């Protein structure tokens, strides 16, 4: 097993002379601290993404994006957050109150939970689960349930149709995604995220070993992140705001956070599976943990930049086209990729 954040904290504490034996309370405190650390990390990244999206999209579109709040609008996400928190939280009269309340949480919580086995850097992982990638795929499959509940509980036709679209899309693109991940797992021989990163250190980035798989994963990932051209979750020109049409205030903020946390999560998975994760050339003198987290962040940001670039370039695909691409093109190609990879691995080439 590789080092985890927990190990590192214990090590750091022992350096300054604090150590504890078998007592449970300090352990719980450390674990809680790690949980908060991850939440803060995700929130900061989400805030940065929203700012980056506005800026990058602005510059693509010959404008400057937010400029008023802070230097180059850097404080814009905070202002947005305050706005969302202070808005009135409306529940429609005929909504199913309990489900309406719980749906944002069902969407939000899994989008944070996927970060548990995520290797942010060398030694910067919450828990290196032996079934890491399987766990991530399983957890991220929960959020469509929340989407469906949100659409149904709102008692709004736009929301219902939007949620049906979103769920149809999520489910159809999860299959090619998992199938391509199996290709990576076959090469690595392990489901652990950290092992996948280390295997790429030994061989090379899997984007070179699995070019077809990478392209399929990329397209499926954009669909899973519900980014343009596959943003049927929102489809604002048809269904106003898709499944969260009726949501406002804090509940809307949860959906918003979940969407960007999802963006972060899947970009992180992509960086880990295909771009060597936290690996990169080290500069002597700077601690490995910091360097590796830096490389990882750079890779994630590059992928996020790509999705924003895509958003600035193409329109949205129609719902039946998305589904037919998913089932008729992506899944057969993913199976082909799996078949070729299997042959090559069995033949000892990879």
């Amino acid at each position, binding site marked *: 097993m590789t080092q985890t954040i927990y190990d590192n904290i214990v090590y750091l504490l022992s350096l300054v002379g604090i150590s504890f034996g078998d007592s449970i309370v300090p352990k719980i405190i450390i674990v809680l601290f790690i949980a908060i650390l991850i939440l803060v990390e995700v929130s900061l990244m989400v805030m940065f993404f929203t700012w980056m999206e506005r800026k990058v*999209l602005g510059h693509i*579109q010959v404008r400057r994006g937010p400029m008023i709040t802070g230097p180059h609008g850097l404080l814009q996400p905070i202002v947005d957050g305050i706005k969302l928190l202070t808005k009135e939280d409306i529940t429609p009269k005929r909504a199913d109150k309990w489900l309406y309340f719980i749906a944002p949480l069902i969407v939000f919580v899994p989008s944070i939970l996927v970060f548990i086995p995520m290797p942010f850097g060398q030694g910067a992982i919450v828990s290196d689960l032996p079934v890491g990638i399987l766990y991530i795929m399983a957890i991220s499959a929960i959020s469509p349930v929340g989407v469906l509940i949100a659409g149904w509980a709102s008692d709004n036709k736009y929301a219902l149709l939007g949620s049906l679209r979103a769920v149809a899309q999520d489910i159809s693109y999860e299959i090619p995604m998992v199938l391509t991940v199996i290709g990576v797992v076959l090469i690595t021989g392990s489901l652990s995220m950290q092992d996948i990163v280390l295997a790429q250190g030994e061989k090379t980035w899997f984007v070179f070993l699995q070019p077809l798989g990478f392209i399929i994963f990329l397209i499926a990932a954009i669909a899973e992140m519900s980014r*343009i*051209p596959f943003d049927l979750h929102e489809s604002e020109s048809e269904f*106003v705001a898709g499944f969260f049409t009726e949501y406002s205030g804090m509940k809307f903020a949860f959906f918003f956070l979940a969407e960007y946390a999802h963006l972060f999560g899947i970009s992180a998975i992509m960086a880990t599976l295909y771009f060597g994760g936290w690996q990169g050339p080290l500069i002597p003198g700077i601690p490995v943990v910091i360097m590796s987290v830096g490389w990882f962040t750079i890779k994630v940001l590059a992928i996020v930049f790509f999705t924003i670039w895509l*958003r600035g*370039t193409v*329109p949205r695909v129609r719902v039946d086209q998305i589904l037919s691409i998913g089932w008729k093109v992506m899944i057969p190609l993913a199976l082909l990729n799996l078949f070729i990879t299997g042959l090559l691995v069995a033949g000892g080439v990879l």
Partner: protein
Amino acid sequence: MTETEEFTINVGPVHPSTHGVLRFVLRMDGETIKDTEMVLGQLHRGLEKIAESRSYLQFVPYTDRLDYISGMTNNYAYTKAVEDLAGITVPRRGEYLRVLVMELGRIVNHMLFTGTLFLDLAASTPIMYCFRDRHNILELFESLSGARITFNYIRPGGVRGDIPEGFIDKTRALLKELPSRIDEYAELLNDNEIVKMRLKGIGMLNPKDAINYGVTGPMLRGSGVSYDIRKDDPYSVYDELDFKVCTRNECDTYARYVVRMDEMRESLHIAEQALDAIERLQGPVSTPYFPRIFKPVRGESYSRIEAPKGELGFYIVSDGSEHPYRVKIRSPSFCNLIALPQMVKGLKISDLVAVFGIVDICLGDVDR
């Protein structure tokens, strides 16, 4: 065999992609549109009634509010009807100036069309590009008329004022720059695979139906009918200008979009010729004297022009007093919209947005 239940969905009057206050009542089978009903009139301001209590000159600003995207052509259509009614002729330099601003107005309209169409398809970049370039043209209009949207510039007897100093140079520079900008849109959009996926093969309207519905303008030319009032029933000085009528035979939304892209280039070509003529010709841009109390002879006139959205007509009945007895507006948006239910039948709701965008209506023009 699964059974599905039809349901109605209400799109509008306040909705992101209805470009104003139009309401659709859609009868849906899942995501497929079975039937479309449109509820109009949310923006009805009774302009035709207002006209009856205004003088001929006072009504010109109201025409700006018809299709508030291309005010210049609206001004002209009304003005031409009044001039036909009273037999006023305008100096040639004035006519060329009118043609110049109308063609620039057409470009403005098509830019806004391109932007909003792709915004409805969730591509947010084209509208920014289009607004950037539209702004430059509006600056020119502002220097001419003092306004950016509601110009009140073309009026019976000519235009409101001669061109300001430096206008010709500024316009020439802009006309030189715009082709590259239009190429930029074309590069981004025309061969974009997803644009083709979204626009090709939907919203079919064959030439026969298009004519029978009374569809006009780029909508008709996208159905392969080569008809342009500027060419077929020339008004102003269009018979002295060299330009092509842009048509496409595919009859789908993509064809109608490309027709508009081509039209922008043709309009630039016309505008260049008009600008040359303005520079070459001497003399006034308006008739020397237009009476303050203007009473045309009894009678009636009907003038139609090729507005950016289609055929814009004004029917004016005069009873010899200073108010028009009756003004009837034939607005292209209203007449083109009637074909929409047939165009979207059996398509998905996402296609409704695309087809509706391609009809290119302005609710001020529909409801009047």
